[in-house]
């Protein structure tokens, strides 16, 4: 359980997150969508801090806001006709898509409440407080237990980088 103040902060951040996420998927102007996406990702970083994952919050802002969202904005600017209001931004699956998403939400919430609210249903820790420097712990874990996935991810990143360059390159002929 979080403290009273932290709970208040959580509700605020959660509200901002959800509101900006809704804006992201619903706005017609795709540039504004991208900006709301940035706000959403930034507030998710706030959630991370509430969960005592400061390092991840920093990485979240650095990678998502500084990198991924920036790439999105670049793509928006490189491709024209995105922001005009005449263009239909949603496809014909609007009703079906919202239905599916809503069903998923109900199922997920149901499952969560079933497993988490029941006493003894899920092994919650007695004292949910991460003791120690998460950055330190994370570094240790990444280079001991999880060194193989870590290396694999770096290989994946390089592969993605090269793949992106090859894809986006203009054909010579």
């Amino acid at each position, binding site marked *: 359980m979080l403290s009273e*103040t932290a709970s208040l902060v959580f509700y605020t951040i959660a509200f901002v997150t959800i509101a900006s996420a809704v804006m992201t998927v619903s706005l017609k*102007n795709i*540039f*504004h969508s991208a*900006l709301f996406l*940035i706000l959403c990702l930034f507030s998710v970083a706030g959630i991370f801090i509430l969960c005592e994952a*400061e*390092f991840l*919050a*920093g*990485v979240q*802002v*650095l990678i998502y*806001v*500084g*990198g991924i*969202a*920036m790439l999105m*904005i*670049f793509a928006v*600017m490189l491709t024209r006709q995105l922001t005009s209001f005449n263009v239909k931004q949603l496809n014909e699956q609007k009703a079906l898509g919202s239905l599916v998403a809503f069903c998923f939400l109900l199922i997920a919430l149901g499952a969560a409440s079933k497993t988490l609210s029941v006493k003894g249903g899920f092994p919650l820790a007695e004292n949910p407080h991460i003791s120690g*420097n*998460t*950055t330190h712990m994370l570094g240790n874990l990444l280079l001991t237990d999880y060194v193989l996935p870590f290396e694999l991810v770096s290989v994946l990143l390089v592969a993605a980088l090269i793949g992106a360059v090859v894809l986006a390159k203009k054909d010579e002929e």
Partner: protein
Amino acid sequence: MELEKLFAFFGDLLAQIGLTGVALTVVVNVLVAAMLLGVLAVMALFLVWWERKVSAHIQDRLGPMRVGWHGSLQTLADGVKLLQKEDITPTNADRPVFFWAPVIVYSSCFMAYVTIPWGKGLIPADLNIGILYIIAITTFTVISLLMAGWGSNNKWALLGGMRSAAQIISYEVPLTLSILGVVMLAGSLSMQTIVAGQQEIWNWYIWRQPLGFLIYIIAATAEVNRTPFDLPEAEQELVAGFNVEYSGMKFAMFFLAEFLNMFTVSAIATTLFLGGWNGPILPSWMWFIGKTLAVVFVLMWIRWTYPRLRVDHLMEFAWKWLLPLAFLNLVLTGIGYELWQRIFG
């Protein structure tokens, strides 16, 4: 002179008044933020004046001389002038984006000061991700520049914004890598721990990271869009880049944020490489400000010496020179550190 004692006194005072818990935290934080705001506003005004003086004297001129002693109040007068100016928004501008861009650039450069240690114990919040936090929060500058470029609905502004985003993202990579060398040596991301590791002058990380320092200074110059890397606002090509449509107070915010960013990168350089607030005799905050201003002077000196780079040279320099050098620095640091540990540890 001992600011730490002063702050401790104020803390006691607040505690005696009867504030406790959350209220005390809020009051203290608001006071600290307000103080920081004041200090930085004065600092920005001073930096603008100083830049003009340095440029003038390098060019055998005198610079502003009329307002105050040697024009020292000139920036204030300019600020008042800018406040009075009409605040123009272009007709076809994307209004909310246009409005929020200067706000974001200004607030992000203030937020960076949360983890900068001004002196012994004079740090608003000693986060354990200190330097990572600063790097992360300063990326908002890029977003605001892109927003300014896009929101102005002006091709020069857009080009300037795109250029600046491309440049800042490119130079962020060597910048971060050069900082990593120091982080490896200090074994921590926290700014206070990094400063604590360089008590004496021969402990400064600049002696163990000369290449890293060089890369940092170059990348930081590019990061804050200063000559010779000031392509985003190249006056001759882009008239003023992303802030071409801004006037009045919004322009002033961009302008001051630029100078504050310069102070920020200099403060980081001081903290990481030049021993932070460590120094004999004088109070620690004086040492910090003095060293930072020295770095700022070097940046100004560079600005008024070199011509602007071409845009393809700029990118080539970042990716083909600085990045490999930064990697080399990182590898050498790792090997050197390990060897040091084996032999002397």
